[in-house]
């Protein structure tokens, strides 16, 4: 694992995530880049994505009680999430999303280094629902590190119409060199 130059004051992204999870406990679960990083996908991220089974009003209320300002954006457009709550905690931007629309409402939750994250299969489902290029990059990387989940990931991607994107990333040489399992 490469390290950045020494002497640099570390900004604690993971501490901010921990704090946000505390505020949203026990209904909050980390998704997005930090969760991917925990599972070994080294993609730069600068914000916290969290899914919750709480409704938006309750989320705003929890955040306000914790002294955290946040804005809610609602949408009725097809394909959009019905609401997203954005804010900043300890200088780090965050987004809180509805669990039911990100595949997290029935997710099996695990603790990794003290952080609540979905298990790897549930995380893959959330990525296939989002279905962007970065999401499929992450799923492909996970499949390369854990070949045992490849069929599951392909099946989920197929269900959600993003199998072509996933297969394209699975064929990517640079990704293969970086993440291919040595098992």
């Amino acid at each position, binding site marked *: *694992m490469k*390290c*950045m130059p020494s002497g*640099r004051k*570390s900004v*604690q992204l993971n501490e901010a995530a921990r704090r946000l999870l505390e505020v949203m406990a026990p209904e909050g679960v980390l998704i997005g880049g930090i969760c991917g*990083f925990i599972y070994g996908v080294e993609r730069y991220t600068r914000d916290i994505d969290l899914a919750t089974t709480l409704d938006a009003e309750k989320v705003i209320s929890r955040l306000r009680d914790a002294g955290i300002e946040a804005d809610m954006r609602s949408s009725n457009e097809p394909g959009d999430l019905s609401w997203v709550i954005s804010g900043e905690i300890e200088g780090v931007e965050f987004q809180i999303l509805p669990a039911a629309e990100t595949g997290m409402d029935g997710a099996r939750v695990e603790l990794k*280094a003290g952080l609540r994250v979905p298990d790897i299969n549930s995380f893959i489902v959330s990525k296939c629902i989002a279905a962007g290029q970065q999401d499929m990059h992450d799923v492909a990387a996970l499949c390369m590190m854990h070949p045992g989940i490849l069929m599951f990931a392909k099946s989920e991607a197929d269900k959600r119409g993003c199998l072509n994107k996933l297969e394209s990333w699975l064929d990517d040489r640079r990704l293969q060199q970086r993440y291919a399992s040595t098992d």
Partner: protein
Amino acid sequence: MTKRKSELLAVIEETEPLSIYQLARRTGRNYRRVHDHVQVFARAGLVKIRPEVRNGRQSSIVESVYHLRLRHLDEMYAFGKEIRAA
């Protein structure tokens, strides 16, 4: 891996970094046994052990791969923030 070892590894992976002493207390196991198991994990590359002074005492802190990844994430984040600020 034995059931006892895999249970200990699960505790290491789930919690924040703990010393061997804290791990022994957390799991209700003998310090020496936990120490030996942690050494086995370290040789297999499953954990890293780093020295740290806690409460004025030298401790051996046990970190799982998840802790190391989060530390790396923080370093990348700090680096990115400096670049954006420059």
